[in-house]
C-alpha cells in the first residue's frame, strides 16, 4: 500500500458528500452486495459517487486502512465512514438513512 494512494483516497472521501466504494460501477456492479447498496441510494434519489475498488488491487487495502473495515461495499457520508452494505440497508429499512444523507448533502 502506498501512502500516496491512501492520501488520494482520503481526499476523495473528504471531497464527496455521498461516496460508495463498490465492486464495479454504478451501472455495472460486479457484486450482489454492491448492487444492493446502489439500489438503496437510487431509491433515495440523492446524488452519489462511486469508486470501483476493482480498478486497482491496491485500493482495497488502502481503503481498509482508512475505515478499519475489511469488506466491500463501504459507505461514506460527509467524509465519515458510516458502515458496510448490511448496515446501510438496515438503516434504510428503518428510515434512518435518508436523514443522514440529507445532513451530509447539506454540510
Amino acid at each position: 500500500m502506498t501512502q500516496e494512494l491512501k492520501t488520494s483516497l482520503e481526499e476523495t472521501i473528504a471531497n464527496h458528500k455521498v461516496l460508495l466504494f463498490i465492486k464495479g460501477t454504478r451501472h455495472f456492479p460486479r457484486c450482489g452486495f454492491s448492487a444492493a447498496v446502489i439500489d438503496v441510494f437510487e431509491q433515495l434519489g440523492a446524488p452519489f459517487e462511486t469508486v470501483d475498488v476493482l480498478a486497482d488491487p491496491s485500493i482495497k487495502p488502502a481503503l481498509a486502512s482508512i475505515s478499519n473495515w475489511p469488506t466491500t461495499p463501504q459507505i461514506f457520508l460527509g467524509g465519515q465512514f458510516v458502515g458496510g452494505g448490511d448496515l446501510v440497508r438496515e438503516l434504510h429499512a428503518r428510515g434512518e438513512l435518508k436523514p443522514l444523507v440529507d445532513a451530509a448533502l447539506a454540510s
Partner: protein
Amino acid sequence: MSLPRDQVEAAVAAAIPGARVAATDLTGTQDHWQVRVVWDGFEGMPLLAQHRRVMAALQPHLEGSGSGAIHAVQLQTVATETT
C-alpha cells in the same frame, strides 16, 4: 477457500461470550456466510459498533485481511430476540 459453519459460529461466539450465533451458507460453497448474532450487549450500542464487533471476530478468516477462507459476509446483529 471455505470455512465450515461450526467454525464460523465458533469464531464469533468465542469473541462475544454469551452471544447466540447462527450462520447461514448463502451459496452452498461455505465461503459466503450470513451471520446472525443475538447478544444482550448490543443493547444501546451503535449499529456500526455492533457490526465492527462481529467483523473483528471474522477478520482472521476474511479475504484480503485474513486467511481468505471467507469471501463474503452478511451481518445481522440483534440485541434481543423479538420473534
